[in-house]
């Protein structure tokens, strides 16, 4: 049977509910019943087939390496048995047997601690087992984390040639538990090569209706609806809808575009019987796909309508401090650059980490993960290194843009397949083997060639964005007009979105901002939709705000008014100019503290500023904290003002090419098993602002890794945090390993369940709070 030939394809109903009825005990593994109670599984399949199911899901939902770990059975064995039972039942009916793949049961980063690569490996094992057992298709279902669904889908694509259905589970707010929207899900999974997408579980058909509509508007693929039999009664857990009511509500989903239907929790063959009657003679409604340029994160879909600002600041070119951060692996600095741009109005961030001495193929995915854990904004991956691009596309959760492909044959051949495979958008540079053409005509020709090649690969035209290239006007004055002409033609005649790095225009001129701003306004007028700019420059964002008023993108001028109404006139406080560094730090005024430090650095050595001003100021706040005059939030505000001063000091040193100020290097980690890390992060903030360099190993860190890092880096002080009594043994083991190294470092411990006595017993110092940690560090590093 070819599943695509059915006007409305009928799946099956619940497996779990049916197994409970058969007598499965609470807590029992449903998948092991493939081995111990094959007759139950067979009967359940037969029930659904008799009711008319054309695809039955094998009893393999939770059969993964993680859940089967201590059962004495392998994935191959359990999946093999499950798929074979489904195939035997389906034999002779023409129905298909699907390998059913559910969530792993562990949360992926950044919410949990499982790495994407680890999840991929577990799914790869499942997919290979399903294929070997002869599954006809793969049904990935009940996913709530888009990243986990991506890992599963990639594994299915790379390990098998089978059709893949993917459904996620949404709650009544219209999002999955991790915040993924139906639009993001549909666009991302279609881009990644799913054959059908939709939703299952969690809701009844009535609640699912608006979600099915949103999914249908965001995909060309057949849409799947496999909801529950209504919502369960909270007191006893029973599902409310009768089979007939269920089928009646499902009819509305089919009208809205669902072409593949079935039931989830609470449904049985009676529901399927009614569904079968309902779909007889019906064809699904038109889903109303809305083609548009689009990028997203899981939680933030971003259709490109009107002007969308791309922030350019995550780029080491010409930025000494950024280069230093890259070489030192200082991801916090890069995340901070992202936060600032986002707050200033960037809607997409360009991410470029290419610099001599940096392993871009390893660094770009690392930076993508760090950014995605802290800021929710689509990224444009900017690299000429195909390995870096692929590694980053693999881990990017959402639909990314790739910057860039060019008209060069080699670039077309290496970059476009990656864009296709990962379902990204791509920026096409209008240059080729002969360089940048000096006429608009020739640039448009290259744009056409890039579009042709992309479409031939199956990349939709709205995913091809063209960069007509800004040349420095002081060097090639005639080129500014050519660029603008090319933008206009690509935008108007080809109907493509255009990207332009705007800032470059004014290089080498005085009052650069004036030229940049004027060029930006003209480019927007010519049809530029995706300006790459520095959003921290107020004048640039002002010009874009004004453009949005004139173009009508800002209805009723609301955003414009809010922008300028919110900005208070620069007010001269009486104390401005008289405030000391100590005041600014005590009051937690970051920009003021930085400004004062900049002034002081003109005639004060960096180290003298730290020892003579910064530390005494922090000590004062610390003493007030201990006396109960200021509280933890103020202590942290002061620490962050101090951090702003440290940034000035680092920038000053980077400019001179000097070594960084470090009063000592400290490892911090939350011990194995412990996944809550705000306490450790508080200590980190405070220590860093006393000038200590913190190597943050993160959370849930195995003892061996901490000991190994301490030894390798020659660390003299290690700080460990534990929150639960259940993780204290891991703390103890870590301390033991550290004491056993050749040159044992001092160990300090803290966290909700740690006491002074416990610390003493494991040979560690007790850090009651962040202040105490500073005192310990002082003693350890005192000369």
């Amino acid at each position, binding site marked *: 049977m070819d599943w695509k030939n059915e006007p409305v394809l009928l799946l099956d109903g619940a497996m779990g509910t049916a197994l409970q009825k058969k007598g499965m005990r609470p807590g029992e593994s449903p998948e092991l019943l493939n081995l111990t109670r094959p007759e139950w599984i067979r009967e359940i399949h037969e029930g659904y087939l008799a009711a008319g199911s054309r695809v039955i899901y094998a009893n393999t939902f939770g059969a993964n390496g993680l859940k089967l770990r201590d059962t004495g059975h392998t994935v191959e064995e359990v999946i093999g048995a499950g798929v074979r039972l489904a195939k035997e039942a389906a034999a002779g009916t023409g129905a298909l047997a699907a390998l059913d793949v559910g969530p792993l049961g562990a949360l992926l980063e950044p919410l949990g*601690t499982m790495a994407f690569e680890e999840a991929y490996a577990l799914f790869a094992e499942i997919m290979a087992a399903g294929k070997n057992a002869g599954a006809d298709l793969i049904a990935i279902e009940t996913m709530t984390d888009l990243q986990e669904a991506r890992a599963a889908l990639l594994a299915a694509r790379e390990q098998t040639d089978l059709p893949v259905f993917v459904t996620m589970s949404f709650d009544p707010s219209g999002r999955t538990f991790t915040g993924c929207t139906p639009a993001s899900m549909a666009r991302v999974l279609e881009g990644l090569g799913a054959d059908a997408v939709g939703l299952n579980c969690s809701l009844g058909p009535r609640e699912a209706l608006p979600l099915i509509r949103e999914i249908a508007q965001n995909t060309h693929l057949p849409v799947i609806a496999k909801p529950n039999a209504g919502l369960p009664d909270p007191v006893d857990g029973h599902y409310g809808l009768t089979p007939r009511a269920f089928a009646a509500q499902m009819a509305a989903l089919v009208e809205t575009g669902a072409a593949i239907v079935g039931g989830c929790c609470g449904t049985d063959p009676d529901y399927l019987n009614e569904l079968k009657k309902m779909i007889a003679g019906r064809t699904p409604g038109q889903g109303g796909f809305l083609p548009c340029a689009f990028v997203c994160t899981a939680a933030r879909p971003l259709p490109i309508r009107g002007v969308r600002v791309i922030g350019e600041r995550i780029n080491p070119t010409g930025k000494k401090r950024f280069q230093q951060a890259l070489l030192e692996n200082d991801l916090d600095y890069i995340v901070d650059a992202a936060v600032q741009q986002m707050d200033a109005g960037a809607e997409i961030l360009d991410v470029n980490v290419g610099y001599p001495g940096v392993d871009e193929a390893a660094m770009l995915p690392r930076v993508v993960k760090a950014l995605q854990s802290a800021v929710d904004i689509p990224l444009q991956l900017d690299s000429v290194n195909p390995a870096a691009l692929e590694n980053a596309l693999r881990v990017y959760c959402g639909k990314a843009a790739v910057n860039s492909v060019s008209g060069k044959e080699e670039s077309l051949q290496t970059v476009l397949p990656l864009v296709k495979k990962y379902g990204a958008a791509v920026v096409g540079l209008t240059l080729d083997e002969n360089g940048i053409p000096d006429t608009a005509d020739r640039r448009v020709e290259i744009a056409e060639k890039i579009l042709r090649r992309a479409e031939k690969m199956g990349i939709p035209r709205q995913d091809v964005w063209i960069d007509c290239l800004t040349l420095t006007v002081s060097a090639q004055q005639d080129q500014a007009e050519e660029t603008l002409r090319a933008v206009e033609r690509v935008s108007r005649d080809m109907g493509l979105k255009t990207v332009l790095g705007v800032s470059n225009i004014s290089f080498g001129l005085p009052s650069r901002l004036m030229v940049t701003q004027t060029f930006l306004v003209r480019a927007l007028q010519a049809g530029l939709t995706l300006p790459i700019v520095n959003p921290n420059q107020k004048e640039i964002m002002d010009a874009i705000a004004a453009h949005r008023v004139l173009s009508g993108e800002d209805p009723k001028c609301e955003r414009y008014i809010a922008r300028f109404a919110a900005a208070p006139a620069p007010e001269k406080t009486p104390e401005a100019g008289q405030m000391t560094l100590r005041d600014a730090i005590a009051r937690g005024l970051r920009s003021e503290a930085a400004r004062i430090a900049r002034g002081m650095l003109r005639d004060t050595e960096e180290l003298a500023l730290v020892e003579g001003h910064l530390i005494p100021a922090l000590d004062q706040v610390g003493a007030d904290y201990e006396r*109960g005059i200021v509280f933890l939030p103020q202590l942290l505000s002061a620490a962050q003002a101090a951090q702003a001063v440290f940034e000035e000091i680092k920038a000053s040193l980077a400019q001179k090419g000097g070594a960084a100020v470090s009063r000592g290097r400290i490892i911090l980690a939350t011990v194995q098993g412990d*996944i809550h890390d705000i306490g450790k992060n508080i200590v980190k903030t405070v220590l860093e602002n006393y000038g200590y360099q913190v190597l943050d190993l993160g959370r849930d860190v195995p003892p061996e890794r901490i000991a190994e890092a301490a030894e390798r880096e020659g660390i003299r002080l290690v700080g460990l945090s534990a929150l639960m009594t259940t993780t204290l043994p891991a703390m103890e083991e870590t301390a033991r390993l550290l004491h056993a190294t050749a040159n044992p470092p001092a160990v300090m411990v803290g966290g909700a369940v740690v006491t002074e006595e416990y610390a003493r017993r494991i040979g560690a110092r007790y850090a009651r709070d962040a202040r105490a940690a500073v005192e310990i560090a002082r003693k350890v590093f005192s000369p």
Partner: protein
Amino acid sequence: MRVNVDDALRYAGVRVPSGMDRAAMESRAERVLSLSPPRFLYRVFALEAGENGMLLTEAGLSLPGALARKMLSGCRKAALMVCTLGAGFDAMLRAAQARDMAEAVLLDACGSAAVEAGCDAAEKEIAARFPRMYRTDRFSPGYGDLPLESQKEILRLLDAEKRLGVHAAPSCLMLPMKTVTAAVGLADAPQPARIRGCAICALRERCALRQGGTSCGLEE
């Protein structure tokens, strides 16, 4: 639903809040409730005293130890609940940590108070479903001698992974971060308040609030 901002400020270590502190915490609470409101699940089970503690017969679960026995001995039924702010709050907190650690500490505390407000709401709903029954205090794994491991059992019984996106790590820590599991007994006669106060708390010896001379507010 109302978040107790005084509790939140106390959790954040702000011992003497100003009017501005309170107002800022109010608006933080509003943001949490709108962007990542508490969601909960509960189920009500029949109860009997068993050899290994109080037995929820239908669920095949026993709540071992003296605390559960003391709390539930006069009860016919027990409600098990889980309440979470969800992954959205964790994302908010990660973003806040990247921006401003001081704000993150306040937000974290606000989340703790918000999840309690969610538990209160769940309890209110249970009370409305059983208008003629009396409730015990709400208690959670980790209180007294009720083992943390019961958390996993409660999550499993409520199918919380699938229905609420809540997971427990092998260390019994739950994700999303602001998640609480709890039990409430339902009896035919009024139940005394039994567990309020530091005396019963497992964190008694190391509680920072207690060391500072205050309490988390659960003390009578």
